[in-house]
């Protein structure tokens, strides 16, 4: 395993502070790892939303984990461009999200305005669900209700 691969696997395994069932690699927050000739490590992370309060914690976690692994010369940078979208979330991330009780974001270049593809209830799998409020417990989640089982559930909204 090269140093880059090793760091990528350590940093990528760090859980998201707000959705600990998912790692930052699952979410697509870990963007790049570079090691130069002198052994200096650069790690790029990107926020889901501009004001994501978890980002500072993630930055500290990444720095600590990489140091603990023996790479003491490390800089964690926050990069905004290209902007994160839910397309960056891995397939494994979507599966974990659903198991955690959060409906994953819908895929495939979908348009933000007309909601054409149904959101599935993570509890009973019904596709008959409706949005209660667009703004949920974190910036990246909306709250929906299932018309079949009646449960309310968070939905990781497309972005």
């Amino acid at each position, binding site marked *: 395993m090269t140093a880059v691969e090793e760091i990528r696997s350590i940093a990528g395994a760090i859980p998201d502070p707000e959705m600990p069932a998912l790692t930052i690699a699952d979410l697509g927050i870990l963007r790049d790892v570079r090691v130069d000739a002198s052994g200096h490590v650069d790690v790029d992370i990107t926020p889901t939303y501009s*004001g994501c309060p978890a980002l500072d914690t993630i930055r500290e976690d990444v720095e600590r984990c990489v140091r603990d692994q023996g790479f003491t010369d490390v800089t964690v940078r926050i990069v905004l461009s290209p*902007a994160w979208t839910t397309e960056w979330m891995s397939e494994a991330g979507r599966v974990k999200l659903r198991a955690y009780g959060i409906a994953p974001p819908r895929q495939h270049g979908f348009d933000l305005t007309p909601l054409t593809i149904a959101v599935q209830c993570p509890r009973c799998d019904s596709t008959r669900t409706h949005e209660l409020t667009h703004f949920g417990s974190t910036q990246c989640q909306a709250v929906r209700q299932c018309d079949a089982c009646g449960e309310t559930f968070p939905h990781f909204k497309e972005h």
Partner: protein
Amino acid sequence: MVAGAAAVYALRLADDCLVLSHRLAQWSSRAPTLEDDVALTNIALDLLGQARGLYARTAELDGTGRSEDDYAFMRGEREFINCLLVEQENGDFAATIVRQLLCSTFQLAQWQALTTSTDGPVSAVAAKAAKETSYHRDHATDWTLRLGDGTDESHRRMESALAAMWPFTAELFESDAVAREAGALGVGPDPATLRPEWEGYIRRVLGDATLVMPESTWTPSGGREGLHTECFGYMLAEMQHLHRSFPGVTW
């Protein structure tokens, strides 16, 4: 040529975001429903994140190397160059919704134009902010329709909120040497160019909400020069007192 036009331009954008963010945060635990408490504070958080990115960029452009906190907490009232609309008091829920409709429609048009800014960091902030702000505008639009075309009481409150906020919209589109220079450099749009799009959207939503678009008569301005309305000083005092009382305090 205006010296440092790009820095002043970025600071204006940042101050608009921060001040509006703080106003919305004042709704925390006081909104009419839990859902809207969460919505307004989520929007505030988006705006705060946008402001942080822009303050970081301003510090590079103006060469002072100030921190985000220096801009937010260590400047006096006259040094803030936000527009007057964002600082207006929350009032009742209708007043906040009207202010949100007018502001988010303006900001969305501005972010969209800024995605092609020649200033890389500003265009990166804009690309994220445009997506976030389209949700803010949806939220304000939904409530405008519901309240405007709602009960007699909600309609009356929306009318009076619109009358109170409207005069402050003229300043959004004011052009000056900084704005023209920024436009010429490709840093960002001269705000005057955003008016047709803004007006078209606002006219349509107000019409659908059975509200009448007011006529501009009194058009106060001065925010971009640091001259603010009375309520702003009180807001700043509240926002800054902890940081100024305990310099260097961290959470």
